């Protein structure tokens, strides 16, 4: 039953992605100044939103781990798996943002990269979470989970700085789609629809791979626990 539900969800996600792709390429109208290259936006922005969402998952996991590690070790393991999965999937989405961004920028601004606040801070965000994953790989033993959770919280504190950076610092980047002032936002309803579908599709996809990553991590935790138990009961 569970397997069927997961299968259905995966199928729906892929269908959503195909539909979103169709909307972005064939339905949404050409943008007036940037023309076709603007369609990168339909992948770029939803990926950025997903990245933030999954970093938030990682933060919740980290806090949950620290809160429960003493009294509810079983829960703590789950939280830790969520924290790791969130960070890793977030990094994947953040990579997409960092790759598609310059491709768009080359056509729109004529340069691949600029050390503008929003770009820089997104890059920093990516670096922070990569360092989180490095810490998890480098350090060994049960203390890694605690240390990683602490680093996860530190990393998350940088996220609002990244978001606010857009308004604090002068920037070349287009105004954010939401809450960006009266001139921002998408006016054409077909563009909005294409954008909406892609947001939905990418978040659904992200949740799917988040689930898989979580499952894989839980399996490896269980394998470790089993190994430990065997060591314990060995004569």
């Amino acid at each position, binding site marked *: 039953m569970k397997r069927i539900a997961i299968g259905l969800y995966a199928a729906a996600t892929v269908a959503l992605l195909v539909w979103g792709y169709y909307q972005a390429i064939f339905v949404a109208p050409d943008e007036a100044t940037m023309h076709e290259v603007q369609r990168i936006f339909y992948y770029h922005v939803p990926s950025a939103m997903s990245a933030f969402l999954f970093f938030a998952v990682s933060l919740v996991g980290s806090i949950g781990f620290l809160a429960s590690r003493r009294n509810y070790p079983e829960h703590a393991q789950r939280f830790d798996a969520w924290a790791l999965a969130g960070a890793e999937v977030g990094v994947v989405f953040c990579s997409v943002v960092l790759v598609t961004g310059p491709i768009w920028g080359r056509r729109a601004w004529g340069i691949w990269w600029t050390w503008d606040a929003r770009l*820089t801070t997104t890059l920093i965000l990516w670096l922070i979470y990569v360092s989180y994953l490095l810490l998890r790989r480098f350090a060994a033993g049960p203390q890694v989970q605690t240390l990683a959770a*602490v680093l996860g919280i530190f990393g998350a504190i940088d996220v609002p700085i990244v978001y606010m950076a857009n308004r*604090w610092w002068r920037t070349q980047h287009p105004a954010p789609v939401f809450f960006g002032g009266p001139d921002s936002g998408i006016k054409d309803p077909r563009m909005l629809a294409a954008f909406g579908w892609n947001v939905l599709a990418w978040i659904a996809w992200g949740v799917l791979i988040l689930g898989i990553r979580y499952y894989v991590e839980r399996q490896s935790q269980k394998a470790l626990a089993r190994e430990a138990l065997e060591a314990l009961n060995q004569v």
Partner: protein
Amino acid sequence: MTRALWTHLVKDLRIEWRSREAVNSMLFFALLVVVLFSLSFDPQGAFSRDIAGGVLCVATMFASVSALNQAWAREIRHQVLDAQRMAPTPGADMFLAKVLANFLFVTVVQVVLAPVFVVMYNLRILGDAWKLALVLPFGTWALVANGTFFAALSIRSRNRELLLPLILFPIFMPALLAMVLATGSILTGDSDPSLWIKLLFGYDIIFTTVSLLLFEIVLHAE
């Protein structure tokens, strides 16, 4: 200032006074970085003003990493940390004392380095020089507070010396950016650095608070 904080601070300062490991190694290292940069970029005139702020900040940053690792390695060496963990005083005091001590060491290095720097880069400050007295301490505090915290965090893992810069630099980057840009705008006098100073100040407040709150967890992580 609590008594425990004072106790830790006096101890840290006394040990440093006897060995002078941290300050000496930092000074020499920072000097090397400054020389290396001036060799590779040949700074002159306006250009030297543009890059000088960055070079100074980056030099301090690289130099302080070794000292920060040292600071905790000293506690680990004879398992002194275990004795400290058994004492009933809060870990936050120990952390804050270490930050203060390291802050002092880095500041000493900066004060010694500054004249050398002005000479080697032929600097003439065009902006409000007194603002440097805000930017440098704020920036140094950001570096040292985070650095001390992450050094404590990475000292417990394998590859400890390698790990500290890897996790410290990304987190420190916003502050570095603010520090470099503020110093730059003071040196060139082109723009007003107050926004960056505010940012640094906010960063200091936020990260110092979080470090103090989470330090106990790092200290007792096993």
